[in-house]
Each structure stands twice: as C-alpha cells, then as structure tokens.
C-alpha cells in the first residue's frame, strides 16, 4: 500500500517536472577569476541576485575555503565584497546607470562551478510620469507587482541551487555509507583470516622444531 502511494507521488512529481519552467540559474566554471557584467539602464534600479557554489566536492571539511565575490559599480567603487563564501544573496539600489561588474575569485587552483542569477528591476516613478504623458499610473502599480513577483522568482532560483547542492551532499553520504561499510567488513574478515593463518604457521613451525 505504501509503495503504491510512493509510486503515485513519484508519477505526479514527474508530470509536474514537465511543466516547471524558469527555475534555473546560469552556471559558470571558475578557474581563477571570472567576471560577469550587466548594464543598468537607469539610476535607482534595484539590482538583486544570488549565487551558489555548486561543485563543492569536499573530502574533508577544510578543503575549499570558498570563493571571493565582489560587485563593482561603473565608477569603480566596490559595492559588495565577500570572502570565502559558498553562496549568498545580494540586493542593492544602483547609485548610477552603467556597467556593473560581478566578479568571482577562486583562491585555490581547483576549478569550482557556480550557479548565479542577476535581476535588474525598474519601476517607473512619478518623475517619469511627469515626463511621459503616455505613462498611466496603473503601469507603475503593475511594474511594482511584477518586481515583487520577480523577487519571489529570484528567491526560488536561489532555493533551487541550494537544493541541488544539498542533494549532491546527500547522495555522496549515501554512497560513502555503503562503500565504507562494505570495505570495513571485508577488511575485518581479511584481517582475522590473516591472523589465523599467521598463528597456524607459527605453531606449525615451532611444533616441528620441538618434535625434532
């Protein structure tokens, strides 16, 4: 009975997977420094985004210190600076328009893969309303609604990337448990068999000498 429900949920899950769209972030492999640039069209736009280090094959927990992340504005000032992270969210109001630089720096030589998503939200405000007569106040409200939905979507992309990382940790734990336990059993058996053989040999030789 339980397996039947499990199969039904699995089937529903598979069907839903077909309709899922737009839960995805771009992945990039970082060997040393990788920079992603985005143009912000007008001052005051909200830049939001997140990134997660996906390829974190840690053997022992002190293996990789994480990546360094920084955001540079077109004027050259560093808006955001993080060292040794394995993923983070960020959101800021762009002080000016232009080209913004999002840089990831890998302190070690092993390449790491990250999944990132950057969204730039623009809401026309009353200043634009005064300039452009075709802009209806309802458009401002719709833009605000759209930005709120985009915020939810951004958060979902972050959650999905984190879920992928946790899943890989889980699967690695599962394989490790099975692998290491089976190896342990075999080693135990081999060690005890070797012990017995060794003791046999010891006593066979000495008995032989004694008899002589």
């Amino acid at each position, binding site marked *: 009975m339980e397996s039947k429900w499990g199969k039904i*949920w699995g089937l*529903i*899950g598979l069907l*839903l*997977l*077909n*309709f*899922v*769209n*737009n*839960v*995805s*972030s*771009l*992945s*990039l*492999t970082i060997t040393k*420094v*990788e*920079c*992603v*640039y*985005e*143009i912000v069209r007008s001052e005051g736009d909200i830049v939001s985004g997140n990134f997660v280090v996906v390829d974190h094959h840690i053997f022992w927990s002190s293996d990789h210190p994480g990546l360094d992340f920084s955001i540079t504005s*077109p004027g050259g000032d560093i808006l955001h600076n993080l060292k040794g992270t394995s993923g983070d969210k960020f959101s800021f109001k762009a002080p000016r328009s232009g*080209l913004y630089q999002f*840089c990831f*720096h890998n302190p070690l030589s092993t390449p790491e893969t990250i999944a990132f998503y*950057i*969204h730039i939200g*623009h809401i026309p405000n009353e200043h634009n309303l005064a300039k452009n007569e075709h802009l209806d106040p*309802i458009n401002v409200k*719709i*833009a605000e609604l*759209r930005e709120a*939905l*985009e915020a*939810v*979507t951004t958060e*979902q992309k972050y*959650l*999905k990337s984190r*879920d992928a990382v946790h*899943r890989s940790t*889980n699967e690695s*734990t*599962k394989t490790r*448990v099975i692998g290491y*336990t089976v190896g*342990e*059993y075999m080693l*135990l*058996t081999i060690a*005890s068999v070797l*012990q*017995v053989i060794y*003791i*046999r040999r010891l*006593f066979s030789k000495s*008995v032989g000498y004694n008899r002589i």
Partner: protein
Amino acid sequence: MIKDSNVPMAMTFPPLLVVLLLALSTGPLCDAIWLNIPKTGTKCVSEEIHSNVVVLADYVVVSVEDGQTATIAVKVTSPYGNNLHHRENVTYGRFAFTTEEAGNYLACFWSDNRTRGSGEVVVNIDWKTGIAAKDWESVARKEKLQGVELELRKLEGAVEAIHENLLYLKSREAEMRSTSETTNARVAWFSIMSLGICIVVSGLQVWYLKRFFQKKKLI
C-alpha cells in the same frame, strides 16, 4: 584584491551596437549578461533544464578593436551530446530550441584565431528559459489583448510559473527527506551489523584455533 586587467570600460561602444543591443532587448526585463571570452580557450555557460522547456538566447559581440568587431564561434550541446547550434566566425546570432531531455545544457564560446588584437572579446548573452521566453506578441495578437490586459496576462503567467516551481521544490524536498531517512536507517543497521560481524568473526577465530590446537595435541 581582485585584479581584472581587462576592463571593458576602456573600450568604445559604437552607437550602432548600442542600438542593436536595445533592439534585441524585449521589454524592460532584459537580463542580458556580458562575458569575457579569453583569447585562447573556451568559455562555457551551462544550465540545468528540464524537458519540454523553451530556451531562447541571443548573443552579440560587443567589443570592437581597430574598428572591426571581433568574431566568435558558438556551440550549444544537449546533455546527451547532440549539437543544437554551431556557428563559426559570427558577431551576432540567436538560437532557440525546446528541450527534449532533462539535464545540463552547455553553450560554449571561443574567439576565432583570425581576429588580431591582444584583448579579450566581450559577448552580450541574453539567455531566457521557460516563461521568460514566451512570445507575448503572438498571444496578444491571437487573443486581441493590449495594454493593461496584456501586462496582467504576463503577471498571471509569472504567478503560474512560481506556483509550479514551488511544487517542484516541495517534491524535491520530499525526495531528499526520504534519501536522508534511508541513509539514517542504513547507518544504524550497518553499525549493528559491523558489531555482529566482529563478534562472529572473533568467535570463529577462537573456535578454529581451539580445534587446531586440539588436533595438534597441544591442549
């Protein structure tokens, strides 16, 4: 601390390319990113996509050196290795496909060796999947929507996408919870079994050696 010697702000952006960029952007939600393509080697961007999802991407080379735009080569592959889009020596292009299999889709760019110049090539990539790639113009034409109605329809599409993504995240969480629980049960079982094996093996050892010594008339 982070040195990036290839600052594209030093490069000139001809007005034609800016106009082309703005023309390619569909609406105010243009989340196009710029990437540096190194002189040697490829730069690959990948994404984990499910099956039956529409993918739409545009790429434009932005950097200009010595009055001519640098050219790049593009290759897009599916998770099974099929080649979906392959162009050489181009400055702009677009590719669109519907994913057939779920997995990691890879888009690789490399600069053609024919271009002179010492710098790196900067490419503007506009990558849209799923609801962002939906063609709202045809929907507007078919159902005769315009203005506020069209915007509200777009919002409705976005809300549906959010709902489906939430259901997906929920199913993934359930899957992960069941994996964790089986791992937890396995750890407990295997440890008890290991203790059992230890006792059994040592018992066998003692029994075997006792038999051995009795046979050799030492005991």
